[in-house]
């Protein structure tokens, strides 16, 4: 049973990675939010399993926190934002999607290479997952670069946070509780500020296209 569970952590890791890819390939904002929710759920499940396997009970708490924050609260907030701003069907990327995905593959290879020597060292339950977490972080980073709209950028940012959280749970069986709480708090405050912000941008430019935000250039 326990071997299966520890293998399922790897499975969840791969699910996270595939979802990160799906986000890069996705054009619709609404689907993007669904994918993000799924990613949060996978993360929460993985956290709970790691908690069970390592006997680190604070991870239960952290898993529940992840669930509440990333599967319930933030998606609800995002849904409200896109409904209020009426941007559910925005479909713009700066590069075409296959190119982006190819760059993504290169990033994954890079991340795996970077993490491979380290992953071998760790005695944690899910040691190979560090590379996957790093790959998720880089993919979200890529998504933030190639998206021209504000909401997808924010989702990229949050998904990057997911990758980091997964690294913390899977590779190190959880950071100290107080740190995790602090991070969760920062994320929540950050998303609230971003929400405020999107309304300000919208009010100012009548659009959420961040290409409006390119006036400040070096001359």
């Amino acid at each position, binding site marked *: 049973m326990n071997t299966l569970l520890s293998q399922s952590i790897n499975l969840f890791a791969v699910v996270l990675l595939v979802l990160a890819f799906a986000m890069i390939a996705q054009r619709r904002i609404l689907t993007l939010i669904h994918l993000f929710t799924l990613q949060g759920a996978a993360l929460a499940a993985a956290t709970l399993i790691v908690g069970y396997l390592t006997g680190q009970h604070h991870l239960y708490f952290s898993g529940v926190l992840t669930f509440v924050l990333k599967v319930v609260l933030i998606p609800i907030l995002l849904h409200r934002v896109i409904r209020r701003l009426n941007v559910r069907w925005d479909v713009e990327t700066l590069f075409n999607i296959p190119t982006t995905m190819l760059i993504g593959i290169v990033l994954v290879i890079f991340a795996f290479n970077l993490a491979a020597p380290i992953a071998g060292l760790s005695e*944690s339950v899910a040691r190979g997952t560090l590379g996957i977490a790093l790959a998720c972080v880089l993919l979200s980073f890529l998504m933030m670069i190639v998206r021209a709209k504000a909401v997808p950028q924010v989702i990229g940012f949050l998904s990057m946070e997911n990758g980091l959280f997964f690294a913390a749970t899977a590779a*190190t069986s959880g950071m100290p509780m107080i740190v995790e709480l*602090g991070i969760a708090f920062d994320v929540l405050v950050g998303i609230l500020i971003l929400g405020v912000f999107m309304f300000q941008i919208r009010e100012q430019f009548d659009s959420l296209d961040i290409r409006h935000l390119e006036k*400040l250039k070096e001359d």
Partner: protein
Amino acid sequence: MDPLVLVLATPLLGGVLLGLWGHRERAGELNAGMSLLTLAASVWLTVIVVRDGPLTVWGEWFFVDPLNVFLVTLTAFVGFTTSLFSRPYMRIERDHGKMTPGRMRLFHSMYQLFNGMMLVALTTNNLGILWVAMEAATLTTVLLVSVYRTPASLEAAWKYFILCGVGIAQALFGTILLYLAAERAIGGGEGALLWTHLAQSKHLLDPGILSLAFVFLLLGYGTKVGLVPVHNWLPDAHAEGPTPISAVLSGLLLNVALYALLRCKVLADGALANGLPGRMMIGFGLVTVVVAAFFLSRQRDVKRMFAYSSIEHMGLMTFAFGLGGPIANFAGLLHMTVHALVKSAIFFAVGHAAQKAGSQAMEDIRGLLKVNPTVGWGLMLGSLAILGMPPFGVFASEFLILTTAMREAPWATPFLLVALGVAFAAIFGRVQPMVFGETSLRPLAHPPALLPVFVHLGLALLLGLYIPPYLDGWYRQAAQMIGG
């Protein structure tokens, strides 16, 4: 009562209090009062640390040693003087219609919280909390950068948030890797991220993990420091936010980020023992100095120009700490101090000058000496100070850094000299007509608070001429702690 409690609780409570107090009269005075209280508490804390040596407080959660106590005092001091400056400054902004009562409340409340978060970041012993506090400090200032709601300020704030968010996420990854290494060396749990524990057993940390961790930490906190190529947010945020925020961002937040980087460097140095962290910092620092100097010479916006000057000086400090050794570290710490003092003084003067001209473009600001001589002299002296003219403190620290560089990394000195020369020509050439020259502008409606400018410049001058022995000993201790 523990002075540290006061140091940390005053700004945090102040933020809540000012949030409740709202835009009523005297909010500015209350703001300054809270900052003064923080300053008093930090002076008290300093006295205790100087007398008794490093102390850990509350079951090792917080840790004060000569390195951070001097930054605590500096932060509290500049925080206080900036609050003095912001009182008339924001009042004029309100009269110009740029600040509504709601925005004033936001400004005051967030200003205190920002100070509080920086102090938490400085004093915490836990590298995870350090990260959390750094991020929180960013969050408190994001809405302040966009407080004018102009397209440019929104853009600047968005960039600030996204770029710093991404950067700081890299730092979190670095912290996680650090924890991974610590878990293997000294066991997991709450203690594994405490800096005091890590510093004791830094030789045990796995070098492979640590080198990767340091790369991420350098990129992450380096974004906050403003190192090239991850500096893009900095000029925008400085130029578009209210001037008091530019002053504290430049004078304090960058220092705190550099402090975080230094703490990590000590650990990485201990684990790696091959000088790689130092070399990386030298490289990043040098590139930053050169690139910032050339960008600086192309600016038209006065606050942007001085923002680039901040990038340049942060690069110089990074370079100095990268060189390592007692003298370079000493010079770096001294430079941190004088840069914070001088740069915030410049922003104070520039803020009032821009208010008077109604524009931040340098060609619109003319003849300050005629209308507001104090502003003009403040800007002129400040610029001379930041350009490293003797007898100001910046000269002393830059001189030390350059001489060390000639000995340790001679290949780097030409670059440094060229960059400093370019910066000198650019800033001096631009500031001169702003201060002298003809104008038809009217004086400001409210008397500007220029006391902070001259206090800061006076201190910088003092540090250039004479470093008091206790301060000297303190810097030496701190420089030793950074090691390298």
